[in-house]
């Protein structure tokens, strides 16, 4: 992979350039004035001459999920106008073609796109969004105490899923051009190639910060997590949980949705919008029966989905260790503790046999 050098000033100029060509998004600090249909809370559309990039330590306030799986996404449109020849004909909603560039993405979020891509591999909307989105990421110099990407098989220095990966050096950035899309973002730019010394320093940092060889994951994966379906800790979690959707909605790897139609003055659209397995309505049957009618069942589902059902079906765990849910859960439910408890229980179970 080609690695180039860019100074902060050059980066600013480059972003101004992008802003003219593409739709560029950057992390928002504070409240963004209004959410345009194509913008997500926590991100803002970059404007000409705007201030340099603001990048908090740790994950960005909002994950990149909303660019691939917008809240809401229009799937179909139709008219109910009696005089219209196409009355009630559903039309697939057209995606804007323009490339959107998201700048300031962290490695954990970049990894989440690949995970969500597993269930959505045949979803035309997700795929269209994937084609038109480029991720310009920054590897992390510092980890927050709630960051646990390394335990989940990621790394603060990871580049997977990004198109351009920037890593800070003393006075500038090293830009790794991860793929063609990344290269196209730099087209026509004359940047110096990184020297030997810089390259090896980068390699050392990546080595130091590589995914930890997690015994915990191995235990969770190897053993039958299903045996802990009735473990007592679910009760305690269910007791604390208020079944809101905060964790699911801020999570980059939660991807469930619901669908509704909206009709305004005879013009209709069918949207899909985020749903959460924490809501009772999520699993409510038309008959009135709810297979996950109890709070504890719903809380358990979120964790078992991430740690068992998803890996059973697709391989990897459905968590990148960004720690957002750990920080923002209103009742301080901590997925790291959940995983620790489950691992201990499994170890004990195996020891007993």
């Amino acid at each position: 992979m080609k690695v180039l050098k860019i100074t902060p000033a050059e980066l600013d100029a480059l972003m101004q350039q992008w802003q003219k060509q593409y739709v560029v998004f950057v992390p928002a600090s504070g409240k963004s004035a209004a959410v345009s249909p194509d913008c997500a809370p926590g991100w803002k559309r970059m404007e000409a001459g705007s201030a340099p990039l603001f990048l908090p330590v740790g994950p960005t306030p909002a994950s990149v999920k909303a660019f691939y799986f917008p809240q809401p996404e229009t799937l179909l449109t139709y008219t109910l106008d009696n005089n219209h020849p196409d009355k009630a004909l559903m039309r697939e909603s057209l995606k804007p073609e323009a490339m959107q560039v998201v700048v300031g993405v962290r490695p954990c979020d970049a990894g989440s796109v690949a995970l969500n891509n597993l269930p959505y591999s045949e979803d035309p909307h997700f795929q269209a969004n994937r084609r038109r989105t480029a991720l310009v990421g920054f590897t992390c110099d510092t980890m927050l105490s709630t960051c646990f990407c390394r335990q989940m098989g990621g790394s603060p220095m990871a580049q997977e899923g990004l198109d351009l990966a920037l890593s800070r050096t003393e006075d500038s950035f090293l830009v790794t051009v991860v793929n063609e899309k990344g290269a196209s973002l730099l087209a026509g730019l004359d940047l110096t190639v990184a020297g030997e010394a810089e390259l090896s320093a980068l390699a050392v940092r990546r080595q130091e910060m590589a995914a930890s060889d997690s015994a915990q994951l191995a235990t969770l994966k190897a053993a039958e997590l299903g045996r802990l379906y009735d473990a007592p800790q679910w009760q305690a979690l269910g007791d604390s949980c208020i079944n809101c959707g905060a964790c699911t909605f801020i999570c980059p790897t939660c991807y469930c949705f619901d669908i509704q139609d909206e009709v305004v003055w005879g013009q209709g659209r069918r949207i899909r919008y985020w749903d959460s397995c924490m809501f009772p309505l999520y699993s409510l049957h038309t008959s009135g029966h709810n297979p996950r009618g109890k709070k504890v069942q719903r809380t358990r589902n979120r964790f078992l989905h991430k740690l068992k059902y998803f890996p059973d079906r697709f391989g990897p765990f459905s968590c990148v260790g960004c720690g957002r849910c750990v920080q923002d859960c209103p009742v301080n439910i901590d997925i790291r503790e959940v995983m620790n408890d489950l691992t201990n229980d499994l170890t004990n179970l195996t020891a007993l046999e």
Partner: protein
Amino acid sequence: MTDQNDNWEPKIIAFLCNWCSYAGADLAGVSRFQYPPNIRIVRVPCSGRVSENMIMSTLKSGADGILVSGCHPGDCHYISGNYFARRRFALLSNLLDFVGIEPGRVNFSWVSASEGEQFASVVQSVTEKVRALGPASRLVKKLDAAQAA
């Protein structure tokens, strides 16, 4: 759609209670009191039936103005429906004002079955107020071009 143009006429949704205000509107009609043709009447059993959900989704659907009218306090067919309504509407209209919905968009009145003339003048005044405010845009749901067919 209510677009701002020279021909714009306010659309006002009126929730009228069956026993007083609706009858008042009827009387206004048979007595040939003139009032602006801008109101669309929804007949409800009692002003106490009109919930905040109904008022808000009427706004959402693009009504330029809303009028809720029931029997005078003391005259409710169900004895106390309008007394409950009065408390609810007082709080709701203050809340709407608090978040910047223009005063005059959402209106409440008492009109009895014998007050045809009163009904005409309430409609007159509400229409005037709404006309002065122009087409509603706050809390009006729109699907923009990209979202609509």
